[in-house]
């Protein structure tokens, strides 16, 4: 398939792996411990597992699967708010499909649907707006979720609703921003990351400049990466090369898509519609300052949190759950106390087990090979 097969060429992969082996031999850290790289974005986590990239890399490289899966970092209280909105009479609650199974404290949206709430899967916020047009006697609420990647399409939908004067449409806004979150991870005690594979589609919107503090202030290299397996492998090679050469820069492997200054039209729609919240709650990571956005006052009539009364309760993560430690790379998914026992893809406790981009679900589904390999290595060492 054109434009796909080129990025999955096993010959090129083998050539890159040989280069990676050479680099690893030059990196001092690797003599003491594996070099630890975080892929921030859930899309990269998915590609790493889908194509078995972890099984191809040398043991001297450890990939830490970061917080860049918006479904995974959604706190329970926000899911409860979704359910409360969905269960209001006359409401059609619209959501992307992967948010359906995220557990709330009482139930998930999937269960709410089963109990009679009108919950509908959509593929775009514009689909939700179309439902509002079609059902003028209903209130259509769109569950806005995601980083800067999906923010522009939500913003444009709000602008479109305003243009058409559609009054029965509103947004339950859970959009979050990546930069404060990376900063929070870098500031967390015991942080042991040596470099980053940077988000691709977020960067398509925000450009490469906002990441500079990572290199300048925290002295960690980053390579912004595409999502095909060769992209990820080449980006891994690029970060390792920076480490081997003692450089800390924000490099752009995904320059076929990511411009240095981002997408001006998208950014302008986002800033017109949204403003930063003082703080936003993340599952596993707690409250992070300025890490979420809400609708500006001038668009408040589209804000579901103002239009309806939502419980807005803060629900603590289940105590047995170690999603936070997994997100920060402190433990591997299968080292969590409840992984594969109380927490499985059928009955997820933590959100990392829900989405196919979540590190735990990915390990559960694809990762037994790596797990066996790691166990064998540990047993050998013992």
């Amino acid at each position: 398939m054109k434009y796909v097969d080129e990025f999955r060429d096993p010959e090129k992969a083998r050539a890159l792996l040989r280069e990676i082996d050479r680099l690893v031999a030059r990196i001092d850290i690797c003599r003491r411990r594996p070099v630890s790289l975080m892929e921030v974005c859930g899309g990269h986590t998915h590609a790493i597992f889908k194509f078995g990239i972890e099984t191809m890399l040398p043991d001297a490289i450890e990939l830490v699967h970061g917080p860049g899966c918006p479904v995974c970092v959604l706190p329970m209280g926000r899911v409860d708010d979704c359910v409360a909105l969905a269960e209001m009479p006359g409401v059609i609650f619209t959501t992307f499909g992967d948010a359906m199974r995220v557990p709330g404290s009482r139930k998930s949206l999937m269960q709410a649907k089963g109990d009679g709430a009108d919950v509908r899967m959509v593929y775009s916020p514009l689909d939700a707006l179309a439902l509002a047009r079609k059902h003028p006697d209903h209130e259509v609420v769109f569950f806005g979720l995601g980083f800067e990647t999906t923010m522009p399409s939500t913003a444009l939908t709000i602008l479109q609703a305003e243009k058409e004067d559609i009054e029965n449409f509103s947004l339950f806004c859970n959009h979050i921003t990546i930069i404060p979150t990376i900063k929070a991870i870098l500031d967390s005690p015991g942080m042991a990351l040596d470099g980053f594979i940077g988000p691709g589609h977020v960067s398509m919107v925000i450009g490469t400049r906002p990441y500079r503090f990572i290199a300048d202030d925290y002295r960690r290299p980053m390579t912004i990466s595409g999502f095909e397996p060769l992209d990820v492998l080449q980006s891994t090679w690029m970060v390792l090369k920076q480490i081997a050469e003692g450089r800390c820069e924000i490099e752009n492997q995904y320059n076929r898509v990511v411009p240095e200054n981002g997408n001006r039209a998208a950014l302008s729609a986002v800033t017109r519609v949204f403003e930063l919240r003082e703080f936003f709650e993340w599952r596993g990571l707690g409250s992070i300052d300025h890490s979420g956005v809400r609708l500006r006052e001038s668009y408040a009539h589209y804000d579901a949190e103002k239009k309806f009364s939502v419980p807005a309760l803060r629900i603590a993560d289940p105590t047995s759950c170690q999603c936070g430690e997994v997100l920060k790379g402190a433990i591997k998914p299968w080292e969590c106390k409840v992984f594969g026992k109380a927490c499985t893809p059928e009955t997820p406790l933590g959100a990392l087990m829900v989405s196919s981009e979540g590190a735990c679900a990915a390990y559960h589904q694809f990762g037994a090979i790596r797990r066996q390999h790691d166990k064998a290595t540990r047993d050998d060492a013992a």
Partner: protein
Amino acid sequence: MTKTADAPDRPTRRRRGTVHVPTVTLAHGGGGSAMRNLVDDVFVSAFDNPALDALDDQARFGLTDLGRFGDRLAFTTDSFVVDPLIFPGGDIGKLAVCGTINDLAVGGATPLYLSCSAIIEEGLEMDTLRAVARSMAEAAAGAGVQIVTGDTKVVQKGTCDKLFLNTTGLGVIGAGIDLGAHRCRPGDAVLVNGLLGEHGAAILNARGDMALSTEIESDCAALHGLIAALLDAAPGTRFIRDATRGGIATVLNEAAEASQVGIQVTETATPMRDDVKAFCEILGLDPLYLANEGKVVFVVPEPEREAALGALRAHPLGREAAVIGRVTDGMAGRVVMDTVFGGQRIVDMLVGDQLPRIC
């Protein structure tokens, strides 16, 4: 050999009723003459066989006649709730006939008789119902199978979606055939009879939510002829299963688990149309989990691999057949895929459906 259910000894053929209204109403499920007319007009006239024509409460089979096909009965049932009712490459009727025939055939049975139960939502267009029944009749005639008994219910609007069908199938398994998921052994070859994922992609596309334009058609087909040819060529075959909901990934996992063996699959060997691949890429679906309605997974002993492949490819429904992997003594109960990129990954069971109501 002929296979006819016992026709009661009646001197003259009765006159069949007809329906003159455009849609099904609750009256058509009331048990009175309206229902009788609906059954006659739609089902009896389409299926057209003496056993059904009598409208007795049951079809009757002579044991001696059945015994000529083998030494064990195979009995299966399946319900069909696909949305939309008519889709590229088939409709709910063809699906209901082929699906149940295939469930018999993968056990090595010769399919002989089907039942047909229809649950109809009031308001369904009569012509749609007639078209579905005709499609069932065509599929059954093409497969040499008779639909000999049935039932019709009409329910209020909103209590079912347009039309649900159930078919139950009766077949006979030839002496000496013993197939089972638990029989796979390390070294065995894993084959499929053709291009994967077409039914799931066609249904999803036919719903129109994606606004994608493709020419993907459902692969819906009755496979008992193909399976019989395979069993002739590779009599040692261990296991056959149709890869419907959950796709080949699910079938391979069932085999690996039941036999406590590993199964190694090569991604580049799995046959797939480019447009199905592209469809999956765009929507983030995994084609290994997409439903098929005319594709079967075969596990055969290594020495019979080439004979099996040859027999499949010689059949019109197996031209694109391929060896996609092998049974190993690796991780028991696990399916491992060598990815196109050169890595390895586990192919696990899916928790839920990728897509609802595809069959």
